[in-house]
């Protein structure tokens, strides 16, 4: 039996500027002597901080009782010796047992509190994990699939590979991939429990039982490194306030020689005829609106740079335009209507825009729908596809 390459190395670090001591990976020592160095590091950290010490266990994948007791002991002793400092243990909702285990420390010493970092952690979370997005995502994927199905093989998709789809949403992309390309293993990760529940239902409806849908934070994944031939992340780099951090994670889980595949938009380039000016004005505003919430929906053409900076080689970039002529024009119109609901109906309101602005903002979406359904009209939604190979 070999588990080579499966375990995540244990790491303890202290950053004095953020007063944060972090533990990550797998720590299962036989005796506390094996972690003596890390224990001293924690003690030294406590000596240096003022006010509060953050103990970050977000990426602590495994910790046995021996290690837990040793670290807990240091913190509990410090509570006695240093009533002037507070301890905030930062856990994640993904590794639920850490929250339970560390949670007990608060019952012993109220100076120790627990924070689950990902209960509210990225600026656009409430919009993006919003269930009202679910029906749009499905129609969107149906429209983009017509193109991606022929594009994917140029980016490394083939049968028998192991793949991960990160920020999988409602998971219909992987269902389509499974039917078309038959990869050997598919892991699909998202941070929306509602979307994942929906995804599992969709897969079950297709009689597909072997897609591993998992709850997680794409920027702090528990998945081991170097394990996938193909890692996709669709329409999602653009909604992260730190796309490079997410890309670093995609890189990490990809096998050397494997490829990371991302798709993104440049919303200001959505177009339509007739009424092109109103449409263009609105989509320019969409880009500004997202950037207000720290999301860059103009990212598409920047993906070459992002992939290069992340260390990928053999970068391939292409673009395609979803249009009202691809299939069902009504599908196109439905997607735009859903965008209007969320962008004008929720996000713009949340930003505090005036009713006049919102009315004009809505008009552009209406005009885009008009163009899509017009017998002589044309409406488009451009997408950029980019992939890069992780060096061997």
């Amino acid at each position, binding site marked *: 039996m070999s588990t080579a390459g499966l375990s995540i190395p244990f790491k303890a670090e202290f950053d004095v500027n953020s007063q944060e001591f972090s533990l990550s990976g797998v720590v299962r020592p036989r005796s506390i002597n094996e972690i003596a160095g890390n224990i001293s590091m924690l003690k030294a950290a406590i000596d240096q901080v003022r006010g509060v010490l953050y103990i970050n266990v977000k990426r602590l994948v495994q910790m046995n009782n021996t290690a*837990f*007791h040793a670290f807990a002991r240091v913190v509990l002793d410090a509570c006695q010796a240093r009533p002037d400092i507070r301890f905030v243990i930062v856990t994640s909702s993904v590794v639920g047992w850490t929250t*339970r285990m560390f949670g007990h420390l608060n019952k012993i010493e109220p100076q120790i509190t627990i924070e689950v970092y990902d209960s509210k952690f990225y600026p656009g979370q409430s919009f993006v994990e919003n269930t009202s997005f679910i029906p749009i995502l499905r129609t969107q994927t149906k429209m983009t699939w017509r193109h991606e199905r022929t594009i994917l093989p140029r980016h490394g998709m083939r049968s028998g590979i192991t793949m991960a789809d990160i920020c999988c949403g409602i998971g219909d992309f992987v269902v389509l991939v499974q039917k078309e390309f038959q990869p050997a293993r598919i892991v699909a990760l998202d941070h929306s429990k509602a979307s994942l529940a929906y995804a*599992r239902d969709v897969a079950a409806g297709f009689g597909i039982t072997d897609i591993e849908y998992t709850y*997680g934070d794409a920027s702090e994944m528990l998945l081991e490194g170097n394990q996938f031939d193909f890692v996709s992340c669709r329409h999602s780099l653009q909604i992260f306030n730190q796309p490079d951090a997410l890309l670093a994670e995609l890189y990490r889980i990809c096998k050397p020689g494997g490829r990371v595949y991302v798709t993104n938009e440049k919303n200001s380039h959505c177009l339509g005829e007739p009424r092109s000016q109103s449409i263009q004005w609105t989509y320019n505003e969409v880009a500004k609106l997202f950037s207000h919430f720290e999301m860059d929906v103009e990212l598409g053409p920047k993906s070459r740079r992002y992939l290069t900076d992340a260390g990928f080689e053999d970068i391939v970039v292409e673009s395609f335009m979803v249009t009202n002529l691809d299939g069902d024009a009504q599908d196109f119109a439905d997607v735009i209507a859903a965008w209007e609901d969320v962008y004008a109906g929720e996000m713009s309101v949340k930003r505090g825009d005036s009713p006049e602005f919102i009315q004009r903002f809505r008009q552009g979406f209406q005009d885009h729908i008009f163009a899509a359904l017009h017998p002589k009209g044309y409406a488009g939604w451009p997408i950029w596809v980019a992939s890069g190979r992780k060096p061997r």
Partner: protein
Amino acid sequence: MDVAEKAPAEATFEPLLQIEMEMGTFLSNWHHCDQLSTFIARIISHNRTDPVRHSNFFSSALNELLEVSFRGGSPDGQIGCAVYRHGRTERVKLTFPCLSRQRQFFSEAVSNTRREDALARYLDSISTGLTPSRDVVLLDLAINFDAQIRLENSAPPSITLVVDLPLEGIVS
């Protein structure tokens, strides 16, 4: 005979996997605990709702059990680990040889997990002990993983720990 052994649910648990190993071989390397728990967890979790996280939770719990047998077991004989499933619960049966005073110890530790003051004992041990006792490891499983733990009769010098882990409900 242990009363719990006659629990009617017994029959409905379906076997998933069974591993046997010479105890001497198992004891030759501490990392066997980590490797076996990781390996078994992956295999049995593949058809759970969230296989990645189920496997993480299961590995945590199983590793503690294996560590307990590593620390408390004796080298002659076999260690056996079998995993069963019923609904949202996995059952681990871990059989290993140990000395008779260890048997006594285990039966006390197991009954402590069912006492009303289990949480208080657990907290007490975190706040006082420098290293966890095996007693505490079983309390940890009962408290943090909602485990139900009992001992099943097996031929001396072996003992069998039976641990029901309702992880599917905790994970998803």
